[in-house]
């Protein structure tokens, strides 16, 4: 039986009938039936402003053309987007936008992926009738150390200023002057401080806001684009790695509403130069105090034999290794080398457990109270969280930022009638977070969940897969067979250390005590992506792949397993997992992995919750128990 749905509206656009929920903009209703209405100022995550006037369409019974980006649908509305009037006007508004635009497309970074350029081709006039001196403005204005602004290219769509107000809440960018003299800028021309400036360049519909790092680097059509995950932190923001001639040009956002909401932070976005390979280095073995170049086969045989012979062993993997690498590394240590001394951490932390991620990132918006324990520390550890928190605040969520020690303050501030409480904290403050969670669970009616921000793009994976001295894969207890953690190694008689590092952002940085110990160690195997100070004390150097050079999966702080893909081809470097396998096989194992996928398959068999990898979903430990 047909039911009347009062929350649905049926209208006609260009002769096609479409039914959409009440409160839908004409623009979105048109999009639903693949009718493309050109826009510049409109942005799905920002309130409509209707300033560019590009999207004007005919609506029957309305005397004037209406902005599709700002007018909501109504029952029986008849919209026309391709009439002569609309087409003539579209030519007119594009001619307007271009009279003061420098048309320097041949030297503009945006050329080739520029909405103004594209829409001029599609809807604009072939030639301009404007025969006067254009209004001139400053070009190449440094807005900050990250962004350069070309005020002549700007078409004043307000997207960047609205981002600054509505998305990041920092209100750093503003409109200055008026009329044709209007410019965007910061207060007193002071350098912008925001950690989200890179997003301005992405939402800019022209080449006005450009990333300093990407200026004049490439034409968009020369880029090889690879879908991957940001190596910056444990947030797991999705990126598109754009490379030109096998060199990274930039990281762009790749919207995943559940994770990043389409945004990146500058810490992550502009971290890519760290992954630039400077030299084609080769495996090396220290002989008579000097590092000598050897082949991979030599280094693998030497390493395997040396590890086997060295007695007490320890292995450290950076929290930027892929799950597949982590899986094999712990197998190599536990099964082949019979050493339980595994770690990925830099300090002693509270025990890791699946309960650390009961609050998914996207659910922050659906809490009514969110406690950010440690305040700015949490934001610094996963900067895009700030955007989610600000969005939540705008939706009415009470976000409480307190010091890491302010458990009591937070406890008092959360009302007993709270329906859903979220707690965010860094690994270092986990103890306080657990304490607060326990107390709140007794106080409030609703659920209390926590999300612990891990370290590194795969810190969560390292815990899940047991790169810990006291936990095996899946957080299983080792029942008395626990090894020692990193901070204990210098005092525990460890004689040989294997360090695997695939990101300089999360590398093995020795403490003073460790430095002393390291320089006296009989064997240091350093399996890393590019030369680093640790080379000095290494006896064996095995070149490996950077985070950006490998295929695999990583697990974000909320337990989401996502694929990373090879964006840069460093073919002369043997895959890290293959090196682990060959060391193992040299020592008598019979591993026969032929691809990363084969390891992923084995990993899922060993750890069924990791089947989440197939959907890029979160690992749900509780369901499997």
């Amino acid at each position, binding site marked *: 039986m047909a039911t009347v749905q009062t929350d649905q509206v049926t209208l006609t656009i260009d002769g096609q009938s479409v039914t959409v929920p009440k409160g839908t903009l004409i623009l979105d209703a048109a999009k639903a039936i693949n009718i493309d209405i050109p826009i510049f100022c409109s942005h799905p995550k920002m309130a*409509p*402003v*209707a*300033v*560019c*006037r*590009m999207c*004007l369409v005919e609506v029957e019974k309305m*005397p*004037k*053309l209406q902005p599709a980006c*700002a007018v909501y649908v109504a029952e029986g509305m008849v919209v026309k987007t391709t009439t002569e009037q609309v087409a*003539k*006007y579209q030519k*007119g*508004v594009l*001619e*307007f*936008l271009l*009279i*003061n635009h420098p048309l320097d497309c041949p030297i503009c970074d945006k050329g080739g992926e520029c909405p103004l350029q594209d829409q001029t081709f599609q809807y604009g006039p072939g030639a301009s*009738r*404007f025969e*006067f001196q254009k*209004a001139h403005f400053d070009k190449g204005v440094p807005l900050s150390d990250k962004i350069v602004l070309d005020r002549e290219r700007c*078409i*004043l769509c307000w997207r960047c200023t609205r981002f600054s107000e509505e998305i990041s809440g920092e209100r750093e960018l503003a*409109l200055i*002057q*008026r*009329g*044709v*003299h*209007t410019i965007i800028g910061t207060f007193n021309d002071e350098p912008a401080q925001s950690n989200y400036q890179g997003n301005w360049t992405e939402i800019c519909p022209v080449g006005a806001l450009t990333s300093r790092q990407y200026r004049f680097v490439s034409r968009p059509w020369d880029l090889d684009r690879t879908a991957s995950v940001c190596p910056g932190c444990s947030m797991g923001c999705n990126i598109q790695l754009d490379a030109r001639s096998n060199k990274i040009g930039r990281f762009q956002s790749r919207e995943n509403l559940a994770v990043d909401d389409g945004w990146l932070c500058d810490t992550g976005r502009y971290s890519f130069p760290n992954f630039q390979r400077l030299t084609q280095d080769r495996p090396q073995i220290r002989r008579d105090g000097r590092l000598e170049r050897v082949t991979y086969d030599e280094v693998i045989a030497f390493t395997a034999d040396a590890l086997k012979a060295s007695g007490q062993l320890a292995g450290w993997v950076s929290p930027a290794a892929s799950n597949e690498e982590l899986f094999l590394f712990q197998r190599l240590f536990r099964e082949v080398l019979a050493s339980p001394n595994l770690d990925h951490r830099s300090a002693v932390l509270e025990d890791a457990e699946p309960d650390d991620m009961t609050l998914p990132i996207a659910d922050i918006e659906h809490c009514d109270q969110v406690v950010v324990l440690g305040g700015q520390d949490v934001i610094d550890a996963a900067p895009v969280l700030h955007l989610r928190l600000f969005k939540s605040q705008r939706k009415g969520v009470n976000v409480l930022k307190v010091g890491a020690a302010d458990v009591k303050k937070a406890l008092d501030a959360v009302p007993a009638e709270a329906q859903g409480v979220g707690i965010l904290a860094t690994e270092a403050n986990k103890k306080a977070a657990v304490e607060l969670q326990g107390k709140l669970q007794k106080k409030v009616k609703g659920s209390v969940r926590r999300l612990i921000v891990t370290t590194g793009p795969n810190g969560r994976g390292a815990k899940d897969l047991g790169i810990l001295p006291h936990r095996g894969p899946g957080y299983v207890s080792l029942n008395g067979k626990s090894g020692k953690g990193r901070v204990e190694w210098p005092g525990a008689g460890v004689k040989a250390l294997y360090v695997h590092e695939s990101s300089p952002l999360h590398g093995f940085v020795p403490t003073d005590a460790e430095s002393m110990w390291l320089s006296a160690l009989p064997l240091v195997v350093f399996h890393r992506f590019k030369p680093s100070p640790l080379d000095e004390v290494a006896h064996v150097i095995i070149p490996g792949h950077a985070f950006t050079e490998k295929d695999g999966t990583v697990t974000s702080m909320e337990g989401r397993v996502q694929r990373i893909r090879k964006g840069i081809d460093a073919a002369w470097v043997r895959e890290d997992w293959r090196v682990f396998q060959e060391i193992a096989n040299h020592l008598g194992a019979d591993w026969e992995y032929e691809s990363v996928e084969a390891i992923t398959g084995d990993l899922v068999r060993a750890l069924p919750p990791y089947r989440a990898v197939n959907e890029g979903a979160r690992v749900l430990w509780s369901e499997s128990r």
Partner: protein
Amino acid sequence: MGLKPVLTKDFHTENLEQLSVYERTGGYAGFKKALEMQPDELVELVKKSGLRGRGGAGFPTGNKWSFLPKGVYPRYLVCNADESEPGCFKDRYLIEKSPHQVLEGILIASYAIGCNLAFIYIRGEYLPQHEALESAIEEARQAGYLGKNVLGKGYEIDVILHRGAGAYICGEETALLTSLEGYRGEPRLKPPFPAIKGLYGKPTVVNNVETVANLPHIVINGADWFGAMGTPTGKGTRVWCMSGHVNRPGNYELENGTPIRELIEEHGGGVWKNRKLKAFQPGGASMMVLLPEHLDVGLDFDAIQKAGSLAGAGAMVVMDETTCMVDAARRYVKFFHHESCGKCTPCREGTFWMSNLFDRFEAGEAKATDVDLLLDIGYSIDGRSFCPLGDASTWFPRSVIKFFRDEFLEHVSEKGCPFKKMAQEAVA
């Protein structure tokens, strides 16, 4: 028809700006009477009177008041005293001569709509008028017309006086509200209309100075008295600001419907220097030009609209036969170009382009095709802009092209302004 001083009736009285003098002429009797009535009765009274807003759009005042959503408080009244339309100077006159009349109107309107805090947004350049209002507010406060408990009737009202900072756009009601809140003066997206979501997001009524100045008289004399004046759709009187090439420029309060001829020829003393009338512009800088053949049109919203222009904010700019219409249009276009807030593309870029084109006519470098180019630019601005500022920037120049296309072409063929040449030859 003809002169009908209602608002300006006592303007000859000396020291009318003082409370005691204003009260002697019957001042604040309207407010006192209003306080005896129910707010709803007042709204009905004003609706019945047929009073239409004097700021330009001519929207029925009572209807505007009744759009406020029931039960949503606080709500605000904002008096728009940002008179910045070139050619208009009536609000300035009304405030200067009788600030208490304006204030009394504000108090009546506030009481009628249930507002406890009203604002006056006054044009920044109107410093003496600002001072006049400031002392009027202070006097009224001392006398108990403003305060927590007005005249012991339990009504609370205060008035905040705010000076603008010199932007034409802030006369547009939503830009005015944005400016009043402390932001850049830029128009807001409508809907929501100010009646639903106005100042600080609260229900708000924005009324012009002359509109509120009518209220004390309507309350005292009744809707029928008011309705007996003027035309069926344009009741009452209006203060017309006459300027330009007339012998006696100034403000004239006339009953609505009075022929334009009477205003210019009788009250204005006709065109100056014994010259002939070439054109005139009612309403202000925005409005379309009219010709001598329109002299018998009545001064009334609908009649002027029927003739092809708009009554707007009550200006009457008279142009004699020596006026270069291209130059007149150029000056107005330059004004709009200068005042465009820059928010929307058509107004920001279109006024810039038109301004350049008009300069080219003036410099004698224009092409014959530039006339149609101007019309084409107008097509992409009018009705496409974010607010009426952009739309209005095209009305006068396009009406001039309609009636005086030959003058544009003369500028082209003579490579310059023929009127300037004539003037120079006359001097030589």
